């Protein structure tokens, strides 16, 4: 790995942490998704060695996100005691390492489940599922003001959550659609004509809470909820709908996230959040989830085709994931027509 990057990172952290003796070792790039470059490294200062992670913006991101969002969400939920990496430093100015970045603690001895795997959690699926939907319920139940996240992107009112999010993703489709998308367009119109009831509360929405976006250890305990870069305020059912989406179900939609039976998952979420998953409202947010997926995959295909971000995950998303969500939407909405 680049010695120059190690030196620049060490200089930055020494200044940031007030530790002039700080040194950086073993900087190595690791897999970390299409939205950020991810590096593992060790920092020695104050007589101890810390294992840390650097997440640096690529030249172009899969979805344009507010850089500080993920870092601030880590700060807030780390304080609340949820399993997230300890945030260390955020740098919005690209001067230190050429592009914006942040540094957080490494979660050791843990792995993420691949969405392509048929059964990534094996014997731990029930335990992991219970924790997965409990943690999501705790996020939904948390008070954004108490967390200090009240200035996150938000709708004007509880009744406006659905419109705010639908507009967000319609804009993405409008901007990045490289070929006409009759199913996504029809879904947008259907969602507009059949709005859900107002949100029970305006909550922190993770934005990408799903199988594959958390780490778990060998005992079947979730050790970190990751990828908060699309976090915002909105209807807590938005996250639940996304978590239940068939794309993240490891080929068995009756067991969302490859874990609990659907009804059990919803019951766990309701208990942890203190909220109710009204079936009609949840149905709207599940259809929205598949539409949001379409928007993300359309954007990914556009990024790849225009070579703004030629990560192969973007090509995979534009082919497999978009075809998957188009089929989910067509099946669901044909039945409702």
């Amino acid at each position, binding site marked *: 790995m680049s010695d120059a990057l190690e030196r620049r990172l060490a200089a930055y952290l020494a200044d940031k942490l007030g530790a002039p003796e700080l040194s950086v070792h073993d900087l190595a790039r690791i897999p970390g998704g299409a939205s950020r470059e991810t590096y593992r490294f060790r920092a020695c200062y104050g007589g101890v060695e810390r294992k840390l992670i650097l997440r640096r913006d690529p030249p172009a991101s899969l979805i344009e996100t507010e850089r500080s969002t993920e870092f601030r969400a880590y700060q807030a939920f780390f304080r609340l005691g949820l399993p997230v990496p300890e945030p260390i430093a955020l740098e919005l100015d690209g001067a230190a390492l050429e592009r914006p970045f942040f540094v957080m603690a490494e979660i050791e001895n843990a792995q993420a489940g691949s969405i392509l795997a048929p059964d990534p959690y094996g014997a731990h699926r029930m335990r992991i599922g219970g924790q997965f939907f409990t943690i999501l319920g705790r996020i939904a139940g948390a008070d954004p003001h108490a967390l200090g996240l009240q200035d996150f992107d938000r709708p004007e009112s509880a009744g406006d959550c659905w419109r705010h999010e639908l507009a967000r993703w319609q804009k993405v489709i409008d901007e990045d659609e490289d070929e006409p998308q009759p199913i996504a367009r029809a879904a947008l119109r259907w969602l507009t004509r059949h709005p859900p009831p107002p949100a029970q509360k305006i909550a922190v929405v993770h934005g990408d809470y799903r199988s594959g976006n958390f780490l778990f250890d060998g005992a079947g305990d979730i050790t970190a909820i990751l990828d908060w870069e699309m976090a915002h305020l909105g209807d807590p059912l938005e996250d639940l709908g996304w978590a239940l989406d068939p794309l993240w179900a490891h080929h068995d939609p009756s067991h969302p996230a490859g874990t609990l039976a659907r009804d059990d998952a919803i019951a766990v979420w309701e208990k942890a959040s203190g909220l109710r998953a009204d079936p009609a409202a949840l149905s709207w947010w599940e259809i929205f989830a598949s539409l949001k997926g379409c928007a993300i995959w359309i954007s990914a295909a556009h990024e790849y085709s225009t070579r703004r971000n030629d990560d192969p995950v973007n090509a995979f998303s534009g082919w497999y994931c978009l075809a998957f969500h188009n089929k989910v939407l*067509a099946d669901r909405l*044909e039945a409702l027509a």
Partner: protein
Amino acid sequence: MKPEASDILNISADQLLAGIMSVAAPHYLQGATAIHGLLMKFAAREYERGADIRAAENADIRALFAELGGEVRDAALKTQLAEAAAERDTSLTISSLDASNARLRRLLIALHVHLEEHKARAAEKRVWRLLKTMAARRAMPLF
């Protein structure tokens, strides 16, 4: 022409996944390299079925326009549908089929909006049946 492009892509993907990846790719790129291999498998399948999918979809959309043209009250849209229904694909290159497909899909969206606005429920349901068929035809099994 042998070997077929699909054979070349499949064999190259197998070699990439089985051998080259473990020795040539750094750790952080091994996941991406596996995705490259998977994409080559997908591309091999699309080489085989890509023209057929597009030609079938174009034919289905034209047939729908012919079937539902009578339901349309807007004269300009009705004419566009009739003209599109009478067209045929004269080239089977992917780019040519895609160009036709984009025109037909845009018109399909316009037709769908029109039927929704005029609450033509039976016709709307017919459009959804076609969209369901199109989505199923373009679905991409992982393995």
